[in-house]
């Protein structure tokens, strides 16, 4: 019965969040600026949850997550522009999101098959290089508008269409959390913890690595379409190395291997810079320091002592109960 309780609580939280945002939008409490942030928050939640699958659960570092987002964004938004007068808005958006996700997933397969056979360091560099390739291709293509960007995208995913965006975000979160708790998810975690042992017990390591990578790419592609349909314009420069790092910061600060943490970090880190506009010069600097400090803390003897103490206390409690 414990699991059921959890599901009910999470569903309640989702409902409350949805009602609160809808209430705030309908009540006219929010400023224009805050309203314009609603969709980006959802987009970044999707991005960080999907990257969390790769970094937190698979244990591989991908520095090209923004590139997958851009592939999805461009293909999906081109589709939106092409079908804007033919199909009803919701059908067109739904199809665009799907097409964007598939395009990103396809590229995930193409890049994943050769590279995931290699060790983590190489994956990081290749995904980074891959991001640069995608950026320069979008910069030189005519159909994407080059460096000036793709404009006149129908604005179909703004806060007015919050229900759709919210449901998509919930689906992404649900998919990842279910995957992680499933047999497949345990296989993915096993690969992270010790891939030799995982291989020895018969887990097809490469297949699971590619599976996780492609699912993450798919979700990033979907998030990209929403991103484009909210802004109305896409520029290759929006999806550079920095964008990938920002998502990585969300995952790391939220706690690697914690979906809840990624969601919370994504919400805070998307809202914070807008609320603290004065400190925008220092934002990236703070991110960098936070990354280093987090890693040093995670691996410090101080933290080891803390966890050991907690484990001891728990063990004592258990022995007393027995």
């Amino acid at each position, binding site marked *: 019965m414990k699991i059921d309780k959890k599901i009910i609580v999470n569903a309640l939280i989702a409902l409350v969040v949805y009602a609160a945002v809808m209430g705030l939008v309908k009540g006219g409490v929010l400023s224009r600026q805050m309203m314009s942030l609603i969709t980006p928050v959802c987009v970044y939640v999707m991005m960080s949850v999907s990257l969390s699958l790769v970094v937190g659960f698979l244990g591989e570092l991908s520095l090209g997550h923004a590139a997958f987002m851009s592939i999805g964004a461009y293909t999906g938004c081109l589709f939106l522009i092409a079908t804007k007068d033919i199909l009803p808005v919701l059908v067109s958006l739904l199809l665009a999101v799907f097409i964007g996700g598939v395009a990103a997933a396809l590229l995930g397969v193409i890049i994943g098959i050769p590279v995931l056979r290699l060790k983590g360091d190489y994956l990081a560099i290749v995904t980074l290089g891959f991001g640069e390739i995608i950026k320069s291709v979008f910069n030189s293509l005519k159909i994407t508008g080059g460096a000036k960007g793709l404009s006149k995208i129908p604005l179909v995913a703004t806060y007015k269409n919050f229900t759709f965006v919210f449901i998509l975000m919930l689906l992404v979160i649900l998919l990842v959390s279910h995957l992680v708790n499933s047999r497949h998810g345990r296989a993915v975690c096993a690969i992270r913890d010790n891939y030799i042992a995982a291989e020895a017990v018969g887990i097809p390591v490469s297949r699971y690595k590619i599976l996780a990578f492609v699912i993450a790419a798919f979700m990033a592609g979907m998030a990209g379409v929403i991103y484009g349909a909210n802004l109305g314009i896409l520029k290759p420069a929006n999806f550079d*190395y920095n964008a990938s790092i920002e998502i990585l910061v969300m995952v790391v600060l939220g706690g690697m291997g914690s979906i809840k943490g990624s969601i919370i970090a994504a919400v805070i880190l998307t809202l914070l810079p807008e609320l603290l506009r004065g400190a925008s010069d220092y934002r990236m600097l703070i991110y960098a320091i936070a990354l*280093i400090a987090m890693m040093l803390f995670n*691996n410090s003897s101080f933290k080891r002592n803390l966890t050991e103490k907690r484990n001891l206390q728990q063990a004592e409690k258990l022995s007393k109960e027995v």
Partner: protein
Amino acid sequence: MSLINAILEQLLNGLRTGSIYALIALGYTMVYGIAKMINFAHGDIIMVGAYTLYVCVSLLHLHPILAVVITILVCALLGVVIEKIAYKPLRQAPPLAVLITAIGVSYLLQNLALLIFKATPIPFASIIKVPSIKIGGVHVSGLTIVTLIVTTISMILLTLFINKTKAGRAMRAVSEDKGAAELMGVNVNQTISITFAVGSALAAVAGVLFIAQYETLLPTLGALPGIKAFVAAVLGGIGSIPGAMLGGLILGIIESLAKAYISTQLSDAIVFSVLVIVLLVKPSGLLGKMKIEKV
């Protein structure tokens, strides 16, 4: 004749950029060989070098040679400090943690430069003023000559240092087997510090040559040559010092030919495709050793 000359000139350009990549790639490869980590911040050391040179020459009006010496010292010191503060506590940590820390350091350096020097590009005329010469109809710029001479000397010195000195022998021992080297009385911490210092000093030289070529200062100027140099290191076989030199030169020539004869915009994409192809066909690189993994 003119076509051959044009190609020769492109090859020379390629050699010039390639030798700069080779200098940077040496730093990656040395650090990887010893600390088994990719120092993402290595590219940004080039940027720090370029800015230090700018401060010394344009703001403090020092003699160029003195300025270059100061630049090399600053970068070497920075490399050691980064290692001590950020990487040393993580020696036993999983590779992912080290990688993220290195990205954090790279980001930190870029954003510090952004805060201090602002985002507007600063024009900075080359400090290398050597007239160009003509060899048999091929125009060779002074910068190319200086770059090739400086990189050749640096590489010879590095090879001598690694093969002939005690510290170099210690470096080779640590990269072969850290535990055994420690048991034989090699001071591992000191050796790692020396490696970072030498690698960063080479990056500083590369930074000086690089900024003489591009003449514009930007906080992100080190990122792209850094990544390309990493591609060069992988191409040559990461961990192998001759490999890094060879990989750098090959990459520089590929890039220069791609820029001239295919497309300027796509040249970066071509360089990264080289990386993907190398990893697919021969992950250990041209001169790297294939390691068999034991459980």
